[in-house]
């Protein structure tokens, strides 16, 4: 017995609701509701390997702010976002920080780096 999966395509503002029928071998048997080819590609990827950029913050010592915003340089598999948050929470950086500094290299063996997205100057004493 196959199963049905619903995915909203977000490749354009139409936001088509796409319905997939998946067979026992986890193959997409049929796709309905997408209005175009770009949608098909998105939905296929979203079914087999959904990924997201993770933007969050990391702690900073001696900076003008106590936090620096960071992001995953490339999209991470969706199901490890929460785990990645835990890893990032362990880090504490020291100001000054430049934009693009690597915070964690190869997080959770994904091959993706976590990088800073702004500079943080050192706090004046």
């Amino acid at each position, binding site marked *: 017995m196959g199963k049905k999966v619903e995915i*909203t395509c*977000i490749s*354009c*503002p*139409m*936001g088509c609701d796409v319905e997939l029928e998946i067979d026992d071998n986890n193959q997409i048997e049929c796709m309905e509701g997408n*209005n175009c080819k770009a949608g098909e590609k998105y939905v296929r990827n979203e079914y087999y390997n959904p990924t*997201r*950029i993770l*933007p*969050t*913050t990391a*702690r900073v010592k001696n900076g*003008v*702010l*106590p*936090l620096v*915003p960071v*992001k995953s340089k490339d999209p991470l598999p*969706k199901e490890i*976002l*929460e785990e990645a*948050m835990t890893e990032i929470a362990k880090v504490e950086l020291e100001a000054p920080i430049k*934009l693009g500094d690597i915070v964690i290299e190869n997080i959770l063996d994904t091959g993706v780096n976590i990088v800073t*997205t*702004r*500079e943080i100057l050192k706090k004046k004493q």
Partner: protein
Amino acid sequence: MNNQKYELVVVGGGPAGLAAAQEAYDQGIRDILIIERDFELGGILQQCIHNGFGLHYFGEELTGPEYAHQFIKNIRERGIDIKLDTMVLEVTPDKKVFAINSDEGMIEIDAGAVILAMGCRERTREAIDIPGSRPAGVYSAGTAQRYINMEQWIPGEKVVILGSGDIGLIMARRMHLEGAEVEAVLELLPFSGGLTRNIVQCLEDFDIPLRMQQTVVEIKGQDRLESVVVAEVDDNFKPIKGTEYEIECDTLLLSVGLIPENELSEEAGVEMSSITGGPIVNEGRETNIEGIFACGNVLHVHDLVDWVTEESLIAGKTAADYLKGGIAKRSKAIDVNPGENVGYIVPHKITNKVDDRKLVNLYMRAKQPMADVKINLYAGDKKLLDKKARRVEPGEMITFPVPEKMFSSNDISSLKVDIVKEEK
């Protein structure tokens, strides 16, 4: 009083002020001052740490701080003067700018031209009038965003969010990833004003429920918020008796709309639009007061910062033209009017004669969501141009480029745009 003089003063150092100052510089104006009340430049973008900025302008997806950084860098490279931690208190019709900071005290600046770029602020609980007690734990979503992303303070553990615009959606994900439980996002309207992408990636990814046509009818709790009472609403947004239910929570985030920040503009005598809440401007973003310009969220609330940049470059260029010796005017101004299913259009009028101009972009918002539409441009009764769109949403700004030659004739005194269902 400390007296100073600048050719151009830009009020507000967010993306709007930065782009306007940069463009005025690139058009040859050198004597420019940006005044910002915060301790740094960048405006609201510094707290918008999520990605989704810059796809149109830079062709790549950036976070808010990264987008801001590009412009801050450009301003630094040009050596444009900046006053931080400085609050503008008054702008007069003859373009004197009064500001205050702790180093210089009160400052009076004589400006040749002024660009207003103060951004917007959030509607509060008072503005929407929810009954009940007044416990701690009720915040506007943008305030909570600043606490969490810049000040390392998480407002609570069990959260309800009222309003499903992009800020509400983004904050639902952020609170969830910071370990809070987001019980629900409530929306008064039958549709969300947020991008579909945010509904998917901020709510559905984490199984956060989005409940349409519901609102908070009561806030409960003594010192700290303990729960909210929620009810379904009818088509006139009136709560339906008997549908009430209670959600336990210690935090309520309000994401119920933004209002352009225009106290300064109004006091200066700038003519305002009751629909956008911002100044009435021509296509150069000049207000009714010659030499006073406005751009960004102070003019109308933008969904994407890319459009803020586009608009602010226009304001910067016109301000430079004005300072370099004035702007030629059309013999007759053109009023730009919203028609069916159009909430508003910026600019409100076209008054300038610009020789090398190819087109004027009209920015507008639909009143109601609609699929398969035609956007029509009329001059009087005569249709000039149309454009098809698969879908329009009130949350997404529509750009409608109008070629100069379509309205260059002096006979044209008004333009109108409507959005109608396409006849198949």
